[in-house]
């Protein structure tokens, strides 16, 4: 039995969530006293292999091939499948990134199992680790375990700490894979970024962010007033920007901006993980939401459970009192 952590790289850089997946792998490796391997797929990986190797695994496997230079789900699945069949780890761990979401379910299915996706914790049980996942955007948790010989697991960004470099360097082994260009049907073009942002929320000291709870575009006025009273920038969760109620550049979260203000006031935001990753560095978090089980309260220092249309005006009044 062994544990394999699959690192992610994009154009010569390791995705830092890889080191969080490594911590998850170390946890299992230590709990069951089994060796830990790191796998890395791509082309010309020598420099990255050295970086990965400094983190103290038993061995680093490089899955190198020209057809892996640019990511496609077909080539990544085929390449890693060959490695996994050869090494036969009991648990394969990935960072839960957009890329992993694109191919890891397919890879797991080739071993007749399901990727245990977006895992936030791992518990030790006598014969098998138990993986904790979120349901309903974090309102409930589920404990699951694989039913077969092998488990594929992706871990949520921020759920495990970042693994530190170890004092020793792991040996690197190149694993030869057979890939055929005919297997690869998707033709990716060069990644691009949309127009530069004109609003940089990352420097804001105070942010008032609004979510679905606001219900109507016309209701935005009340949060604008709150932002004005606090001298704060106005921001939003994704659905508000998708609706065009606020510009995309004011979106906080995994597909928007990452912020770390001194004060973050979340109004009518339930706190899906995609939002939380964008604001969890905030110093003081206030949540206003009518649903006391909303995950945003888990991220909040202070919370008010109540109707935002009553709470926010009352809050504005209180703040104005202190401003005067």
């Amino acid at each position, binding site marked *: 039995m062994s544990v394999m952590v699959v690192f992610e790289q994009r154009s010569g850089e390791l995705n830092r969530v890889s080191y969080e997946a490594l911590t998850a792998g170390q946890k299992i490796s230590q709990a069951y006293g089994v060796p830990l391997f790191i796998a890395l797929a791509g082309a010309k990986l020598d420099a990255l292999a050295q970086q990965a190797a400094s983190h103290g695994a038993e061995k680093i496997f490089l899955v190198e091939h020209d057809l892996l230079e640019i990511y496609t789900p077909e080539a990544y699945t085929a390449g890693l499948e060959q490695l996994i069949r050869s090494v036969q780890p009991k648990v394969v761990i990935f960072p839960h990134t957009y890329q992993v979401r694109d191919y890891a379910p397919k890879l797991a299915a080739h071993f007749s199992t399901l990727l245990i996706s977006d895992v936030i914790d791992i518990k030790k049980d006598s014969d098998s680790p138990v993986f904790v996942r979120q349901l309903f955007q974090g309102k409930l948790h589920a404990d699951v375990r694989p039913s077969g010989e092998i488990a594929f697991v992706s871990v949520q960004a921020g759920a495990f700490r970042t693994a530190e470099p170890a004092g020793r360097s792991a040996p690197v082994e190149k694993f030869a894979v057979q890939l055929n260009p005919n297997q690869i049907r998707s033709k990716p073009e060069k990644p691009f970024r949309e127009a530069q942002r004109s609003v940089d929320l990352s420097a804001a000291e105070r942010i008032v962010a609004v979510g679905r709870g606001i219900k109507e575009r016309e209701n935005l006025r009340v949060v604008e007033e709150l932002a004005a009273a606090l001298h704060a920038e106005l921001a939003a969760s994704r659905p508000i920007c998708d609706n065009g109620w606020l510009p995309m550049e004011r979106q906080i979260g995994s597909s928007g901006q990452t912020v770390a203000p001194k004060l973050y006031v979340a109004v009518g935001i339930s706190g899906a993980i995609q939002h939380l990753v964008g604001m969890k560095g905030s110093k003081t978090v206030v949540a206003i939401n009518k649903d006391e089980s909303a995950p945003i309260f888990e991220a909040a220092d202070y919370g008010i459970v109540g109707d935002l249309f009553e709470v926010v005006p009352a809050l504005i009044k*209180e703040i104005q009192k202190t401003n005067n």
Partner: protein
Amino acid sequence: MKIAVSIKQVPARDSALRVDPGGKWLDESDLAYEMNEPDAYALEEALQLKEKLGGEVLVLCAGTERAQQTIREALAKGADRAIHVETQPGALFDPLVTARLLAKAVESEQPDLILTGLQSDDAGYGETGVLMADVLGYAHATIVMEVEAQAGSVRVKRELEDGWFQHVSLPLPAVLTIQSGIKKLRYATLMGIKKARTKEIKSLKADQLGIDLRPALLLDRIYTPERVKQSQIFSGDAQTAAHQLVEKLRFEARVL
């Protein structure tokens, strides 16, 4: 173009969720249900593609008898017909089994495209689309923002992380998982609702499709998470709560 859209019925957003005494799923007794929101965007994309290119939109749904209500909603919005893979209450909780069932149900239809939401709002595995593609041997792309259909192929804009995007071309048939929010959702019209009553829903029993229904994962239990962070929560009347909060922000957190 023949487009299949795979949709799921999930508990309505903002539902009060209670775990049932068995600890394996929800107490469903007074839950309301709706179409999984990401799937609603997949349906919208399919309807707009059909309006542009002609063809047919076929709804695919695995779920209990209750899911018929969500299927009718999709038909009322303009889908042409539906295949319902009917499951036993509480029996299904595994995207791999679901993907195999849906693939089996749709295979003989030979769709050009299968669209589905990027994930479900309940279990949230985010895998059914990719798995259907694998079972059917179709190409796939995930987290798709735009779809341009061409002769025999499709070019899509995928969302990557940190504000990056990428165009990818795929040969047909293909499965696409659609990002939420990419188009404005339509409402069903009265005429649409009326028409939907006469549209065909083909019902297949999940246990008669020759698929192994045993889940790939074992579910120990589901539960309400314990709060890890010590947050101070104020409830009660808005005035008092607002006053208490401002006091705390001024004198404890010192951010005002």
